[in-house]
């Protein structure tokens, strides 16, 4: 009867919740506060966290800049659309380490633009991040555009506004939440990326304003992995905890 259905679905759902929630709970519960504080005060960790937020931000902004116009085109429809859609979605299913290798083939030595180097540079880092996160910016913006009733744009056009004005006054404002969501999703995806970055830019030099000059650091997930390999679970856990806190803030922005 009705109750058994609810009990059955709730049980199955709860098991998944445990599988997802329990490790997170254990992870937080098993932290050593002293170690977390030590890591939180470590200038190396500061640099890593700065790069782990700043690099992804650049990638997300780039994704939005070029992704929003593409999303608008996709929402309106054009010939050859399925091919473009496939290309946009492909990074979602490319294995992360393969994505890094693809970028090295495309933009690395012997690639399309020999004049700039991507291996182990900030350019490579942002490029790797943009490659994996652009689909999120495009798809979220596209959904926002598609959710707008065509007739609102018709109403704008017939009452005198051209394409630009219609975008500025109607389509843009109505889709802005979706664009922001897309940007934040792209940001979060870039923050979490490990494989492509590990291949393309294991560690990079970048301008660090708090030091007033260039420093070398690794992208945060790479640093966590590195710490795990060199320092073990305990130590990497403390760094991971700090990174997770940063991710959680971005996550709250998404919701």
């Amino acid at each position, binding site marked *: 009867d009705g109750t058994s259905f609810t009990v059955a679905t709730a049980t199955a759902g709860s098991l998944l919740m445990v599988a997802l929630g329990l490790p997170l709970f254990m992870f937080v519960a098993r932290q050593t506060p002293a170690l977390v504080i030590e890591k939180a005060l470590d200038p190396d960790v500061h640099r890593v966290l700065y790069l782990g937020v700043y690099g992804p931000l650049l990638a997300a902004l780039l994704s939005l800049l070029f992704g929003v116009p593409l999303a608008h085109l996709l929402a309106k429809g054009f010939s050859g659309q399925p091919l473009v859609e496939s290309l946009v979605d492909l990074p979602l299913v490319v294995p992360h380490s393969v994505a890094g290798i693809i970028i090295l083939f495309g933009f690395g030595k012997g690639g399309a633009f020999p004049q700039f180097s991507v291996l182990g540079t900030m350019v490579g880092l942002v490029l790797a991040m943009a490659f994996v996160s652009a689909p999120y910016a495009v798809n979220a913006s596209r959904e926002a555009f598609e959710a707008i009733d065509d007739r609102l744009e*018709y*109403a704008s*056009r017939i009452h*005198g*506004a051209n394409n630009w*004005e219609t975008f500025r006054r109607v389509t843009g*404002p109505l889709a802005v939440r979706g664009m922001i969501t897309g940007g934040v999703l792209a940001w979060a995806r870039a923050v979490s990326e490990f494989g492509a970055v590990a291949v393309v830019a294991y560690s990079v030099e970048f301008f660090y304003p708090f030091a007033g000059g260039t420093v070398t650091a690794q992208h945060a997930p790479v640093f966590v992995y590195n710490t795990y390999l060199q320092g073990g679970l305990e130590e990497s856990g403390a760094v991971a905890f700090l990174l997770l806190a940063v991710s959680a803030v971005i996550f709250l922005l998404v919701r």
Partner: protein
Amino acid sequence: MTRLTADIRSTFTADGAEPFTVDAALEVESNETCVVLGPSGSGKTLLLETIAGFHEHTGVVTANGTDITGQPPEERGFGFVFQDYALFPHMTVRENVEYGTRYRESSRDAAELLAELGVAHLSERNPPTLSGGEKQRVALARALAIRPSVMLLDEPLAALDVPTQQALRDDLVDVLADVTAVYVTHNRTTARAVADRIVVMQDGRVVQRGTPEDVFERPASPMVARFTGANVIDLSAAPSLRRILDDDIGSQARSDGSGRGPVDRDSGTDAADHVAIRPEAITLNDADGDLSATVERVVREDATSRVTLAFDDVTVEAFATSPPVVGTEVALSFPRDRLHPC
């Protein structure tokens, strides 16, 4: 003071649906209202949107003789009222009404228009908080604010409840009196209330065009008759009516020698085996009735009752202010000048 013509051919392909072709022409004289009447899926909205410039098409649209086919919507100077209002949800009522005014040299004052339409008190509200009738008044004001040369209206009353429909219809009649307009609807009462001329569409094509009188009294096909609320009688199923009409033709042939009765059954098409007559033309309990019919059903309407009557193998509808009792026999008269082959 704009004369509008459109002669449009366009095929629309929606996702997963059969392609649908609209192939229709209409002409609207200055300050006239042309109603496009047809069932859902007849392509009347697509025709209207094409006139507005929203869809690519072949054919020609002219305004005052100027070919505007290639103009984008924003250069046509038309106003458009949508069935579901299409108000900008992120702007206030006033901002909605003023939306198009910045693009026009001459425009109307938003406050004044809202006051005329009885919604001045809503000007700082946001559209999602309004009732359907209020929204449509605002949408009407937005279209009127740009002093459109042509008003295009897509079933503006369809989403409203009956009392709101009637109130807004009265306002629409006033507004449309002095502007060229194309008005799309499936409601025959609305059509008759606002139309100077009517174009009836079916399956993307025009099946009849004419004055309301033409279309309502002389429907070109059984479909038009049905859609305008006229009775269609298949004479082969109604021998007693056929006999009477044949007698008429005989006696008329004898008296005026024309050989043609008022019901033009000799026009050479099979369709002439059907005649159309409006329910309000049939009189009940006439002393001098043409034939006798059984009362099958009586439905009370506002001013009168709609009576369904059966004779031979057909049923017809008629109106009666004092409705007869269901199951009784009544005499029916069919005024000859209101029977039309179709």
